[in-house]
């Protein structure tokens, strides 16, 4: 009875649900960035976390050290992130994949890119954590007993907007449908003479854009440092694979599930259990549902 009441106390605490929403949106956006890369290039871009970090970190550096306005710094951060993503594709991923050695070489290449971005950020902008400088924040307010922080509304709005736009872009535009076709079967697309390279490049750029917006907005919560990059990458990857790769909405569900784990595992079992809990959740999930919740439709 006591256990049940304690259990309910967690589940009925609106503050925790606000945390689930805020974290879930962030994880989902990172997952969406992964999804774009997967769709357009058939490839998990493990540099996503580093790109999100670099955008937020650079923006913050521009605001605090050079007095740029937040929106301007945000634009620079986003453009920089897109540039990094495009360079990664053109200079690293494409040449490595062109040799046709399977996915491992490309995976190691983006791994090395991840570390390079982390270290270059540290070298030029400093290794210390910086305050987040979101280009948009709202005044905190209360809903009943719960407080809604300044970054909650922006990240929810941005998430809703980006997911809707992504859905429309991928389903309703010719280029989007083309991109999906290429991700489904690159060889067939090549035979058909589709503009594979353009679509790939666009998918990298879109992933960079989404990651940057996610990073810049979420950094408003507790700052950003180069050390965040790897953790953000793994989080986004997990959000995508838990949600599945079947629809553009999948990372949203994956992000929400991951956020539930991140909030309620510490609440019920303590924060020290989180590391073990994540391994177990990931293993169970991959073992029983390796294709995620929303699986791509099986073609016979």
């Amino acid at each position, binding site marked *: 009875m006591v256990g049940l009441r304690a259990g309910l106390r967690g589940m009925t605490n609106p503050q925790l649900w606000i945390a689930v929403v805020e974290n879930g949106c962030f994880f989902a956006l990172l997952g969406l960035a992964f999804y774009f890369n997967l769709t357009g290039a058939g490839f998990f871009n493990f540099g996503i976390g580093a790109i999100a970090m670099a955008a937020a970190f650079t923006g913050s550096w521009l605001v605090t050290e050079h007095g740029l306005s937040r929106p301007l710094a945000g634009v620079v951060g986003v453009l920089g992130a897109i540039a990094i993503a495009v360079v990664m594709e053109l200079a690293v991923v494409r040449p490595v994949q062109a040799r046709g050695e399977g996915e491992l*070489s490309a995976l190691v290449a983006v791994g*090395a890119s991840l570390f390079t971005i982390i*270290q270059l950020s540290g070298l030029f902008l400093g290794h210390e954590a910086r305050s987040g400088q979101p280009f948009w924040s709202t005044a905190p307010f209360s809903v009943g007993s719960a407080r809604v922080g300044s970054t909650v509304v922006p990240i929810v709005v941005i998430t809703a907007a980006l997911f809707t736009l992504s859905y429309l872009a991928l389903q309703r535009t010719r280029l989007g449908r083309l991109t999906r076709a290429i991700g489904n079967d690159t060889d067939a697309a090549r035979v058909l003479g589709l503009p594979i390279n353009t679509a790939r490049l666009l998918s990298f750029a879109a992933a960079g854009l989404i990651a940057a917006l996610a990073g810049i907005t979420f950094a408003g919560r507790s700052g950003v440092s180069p050390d965040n990059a790897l953790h953000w990458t*793994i989080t986004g990857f997990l959000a995508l694979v838990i949600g599945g790769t079947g629809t553009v909405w999948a990372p949203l569900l994956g992000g929400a599930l991951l956020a539930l784990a991140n909030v309620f595992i510490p609440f019920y079992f303590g924060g020290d259990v989180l590391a*073990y809990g994540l391994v177990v959740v990931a293993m169970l999930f991959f073992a029983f549902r390796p294709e995620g919740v929303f699986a791509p439709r099986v073609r016979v």
Partner: protein
Amino acid sequence: MSARLPNVAGVLGLVLLVVWAGSDLYRSSLLVTMLTYALVALGMYVPFVLAGSLSLSYSAYAATGAYAVAIGTAHAGWPLWLGMLVAPPVAAIIAVVLGAATMRLSGFYLGAVTLLFAEAFIQLLGNLGVTGGPSGIVGLPLLSFGGWEPSPQQTVLMAVVLTGVLALALDRLRRSPWGVVIRASREVPIAVDTAGVSVSVLNLVALGAGAAIASLGGALFTTYVGAVNPETFSVNVIFLAVFMPLIGGIGNPWGAVLGAAIVVHLTLNVDSLASSGTLLVSLSVLVILVLFPRGVLGFAGTAARGGTTLLTTVTKRGART
């Protein structure tokens, strides 16, 4: 003939390194760090390069080796070398259990789960009592066989011999029927399966063998330095171990050893306080992956065969793409 060249060069290189280190404690320490990395990278070579499965738990296996030595000595009063003997089977068992639990995963999925496992393993080492918790185990005695206590130089020499023998063994294994089967399983698992060798069992054997070798790296480091703690083999080590064979060249196990030497040189021996060793290493990996996919060894081999051959390969590769 050309197959033996890397072996001869590798052994010669190790001998030169031993001579170079001499009785200098700093150089010996560099050499031990290099051999530690080399053993972890050689361990990863088996599943990663030969079988093509990216298991990222190698920090855990190195730590298993280190703790086998430390716990055996500190709690059970074993001599250090006994821990070194116990480490490989223990690490192999952990790897096989983890491998069995992740049998259905491959590629990115396997990488993600094994990386999470590695992080949880570090947390576990810090929470257990027998491992000495977060401060680990320090103050281990020096290596001793019966009454004979080898000098640091002799210890280094033994480590060099161990690493050299393992690199030679892996090179022989790579070219043996077993090696052909496992290398084929990387490209065409279905062909190997329908030829009668279960690829999942083969992968488990590769994971076990790799973990056993990597554990020796951890055991060596702890034996030489006399201490271990949960952060000794952090997630950093995993990525270094992935990068090292690629830097050296994946065509041959000696590439892993060469990669370890280059990484240790770049991170510890180059006096560049402002820039970080990690940056140099990741940049070299990018350059090598993009421009020299066969690594330093592959490039050296090509160069050795003369400029004409180089030109032909490059033009041929150009023609194909």
